[in-house]
């Protein structure tokens, strides 16, 4: 009896996975893809979408191995990965499904409310160590970062630190929620978080990317009209051959219903 149940479960999973669309990759895109998949299943009851995380790199190598139909990524495909796909006889198509903006946050008691990119670079690489140097009170700066495995960590390093390394021994937290918690209870703290995590416990910083001429506050409106600088696109990659299979789902994500979910999850819609 047990055997029969086991084999039927195995068969069921095999048939399901054959007809299902598989999405794999970035943990940043994961909550969005899950919500989209749920809504898509509701709209098309016969369809089936399975979503798993693991990281952008994991998703793209799964696309190469053919174990996923769509690779979700919080960064652009790397040159190496493109080459590997090409060698495997595959061409990856890229779709931007949403934008993710990062806000720089400090403790609400901090008087500093605007910083330039150069100042941020100084803070996170350890050149600037006291809020006094930035017009604040005489207080040690405590920068918080995400763990190295996070796509957010890489993105911030590339776009704000100009590819320089974070200071040796930066406080690194396992989750964005932990950064919010720490920044809200540490007076000299500074950290970076996705817009979706903004809360009353932390204060946002306006950022300038033109050496202090204009400071842009982190808001969804500013991110949408492209004036806010710390924004990254979130991608879906799929193979051109499987276009007919994945196109309905991607079209749904890009439709107005799908983009509404994007705002609900806390990202910035493409349109």
């Amino acid at each position, binding site marked *: 009896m047990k055997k029969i149940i086991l084999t039927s479960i195995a068969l069921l999973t095999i048939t399901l996975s054959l007809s299902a669309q598989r999405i794999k990759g970035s943990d940043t895109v994961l909550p969005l893809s899950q919500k989209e998949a749920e809504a898509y299943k509701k709209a098309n009851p016969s369809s089936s979408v399975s979503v798993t995380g693991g990281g952008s790199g994991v998703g793209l190598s799964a696309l190469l191995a053919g174990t996923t139909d769509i690779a979700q990524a919080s960064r652009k495909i790397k040159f190496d990965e493109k080459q590997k796909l090409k060698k495997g006889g595959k061409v990856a198509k890229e779709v931007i499904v949403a934008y993710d903006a990062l806000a720089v946050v400090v403790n609400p008691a901090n008087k500093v409310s605007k910083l330039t990119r150069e100042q941020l670079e100084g803070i996170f690489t350890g050149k600037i160590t006291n809020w006094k140097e930035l017009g604040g009170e005489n207080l040690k700066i405590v920068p918080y970062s995400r763990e190295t495995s996070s796509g957010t960590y890489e993105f911030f390093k590339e776009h704000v630190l100009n590819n320089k390394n974070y200071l040796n021994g930066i406080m*690194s937290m396992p989750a964005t929620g932990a950064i919010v918690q720490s920044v809200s209870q540490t007076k000299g703290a500074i950290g970076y978080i996705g817009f979706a995590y903004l809360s009353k416990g932390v204060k946002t910083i306006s950022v300038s990317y033109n050496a202090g001429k204009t400071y842009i506050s982190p808001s969804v409106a500013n991110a949408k009209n492209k004036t806010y600088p710390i924004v990254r696109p979130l991608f879906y990659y799929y193979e051109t051959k499987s276009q007919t299979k994945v196109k309905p789902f991607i079209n749904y994500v890009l439709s107005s219903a799908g983009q509404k979910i994007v705002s609900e999850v806390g990202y910035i819609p493409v349109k």
Partner: protein
Amino acid sequence: MKKIKRILERIVESILTVSGAVTSIAILLIIVFLFKEGLGLFNSPSVEKGYSLYVNSKNPVDQLSTIDTKQIFDSELTNWKELGGGNQEIKIFRFDELFNLYSEEELGEEYSLIPEKLGEIIINNPNIVAYLPDEYAPTDVQGVKVLASKNISLIDFFGGKQWMPTSTPSPLFGVLPLILGTLLVSIIAILIALPLGLGVAIYLSELAGERTRKLMKPTIELLAGIPSVVYGFFGLVVLVPIVQNIFGLSVGETAFTGSLILAIMALPTIITVAEDAMRNTPRDMREASLALGASQWQTIYKVVIPYSASGISAAVVLGIGRAIGETMAVLMVTGNAAVMPHSLFESVRTIPATIAAELGEAPAHGPHYQALFLLGCILFIITMIISITAEVISKKQPNKGV
């Protein structure tokens, strides 16, 4: 009938033997796997695999140390003079910048023109240091020189003081701060947990009434069943601000906070094991002591504690083992800064926290992945020493010293 019974017994026996063998083999295989993956690190080049550093052949510099490379790409070293070259500013070139200079068409079909273009760039900039993939590198172009690269050495790994595994082009795998951080947090944790745990154990086994004991013991054992992430969250939200305020620190995520949480987590182990050992003191020994006129307190510390000394030591060692291997709670409260620990009130990074936080995104079989496995090996050796110590201690004659 008898025959069938015997056959059945044989079958059961062989099943038991096989399951024992399978477990032992599985453990051995895991250890072999751990070390095999980890030791590969020392065959990895110090610059990322498949990439090399290129300079203009007029540049007298032939080799760069890992630290120098990191400082150049962080713009901390900005002149070739400091590295034994000419008085020239260092110009950094990363492969991706090529795509800003040339369009995809200019690079030719299948990127066949890339090496040529890269060669041009390097020849035109005598002060350049370029970080390029070997596949597209201008290897046979005159005027371009490859910087020799060494393999990661044992000294870099065990003696290095910087842990920057994702730094490009040359990652730094110095595990010294991680090992010291782990030991510091665990030892302080045990120093906090030991007096508390022993106190509770003595109270439960000697002083508490039967009803209190029956109520308290399961409660304490329940503490061991709470998931560590819950402890971690409790630590982050409750303990971190408390430590910060009491000691007037700028940051609350410190080694001390981690020790506090670990002490709480090690308590149930210490209490249960120590209490069991104390209760095993034979009734006649206690009664003999009391009959000689010793007070209850004298009986406890002259008879019960010496008798159960080996059990108490085992409790301590098991508690240390629990503290060293703990991952999630420590990950959330110690701040995870990979610096050499100077004081208790600074952030530290432990080995288990590092593995948990980084393994997910480390490219499989790359140097980072191997370095994390090697960290696993180090942790394995530490815990093995601890369990062997526990074994030796608990095998000692229990009534020694009485």
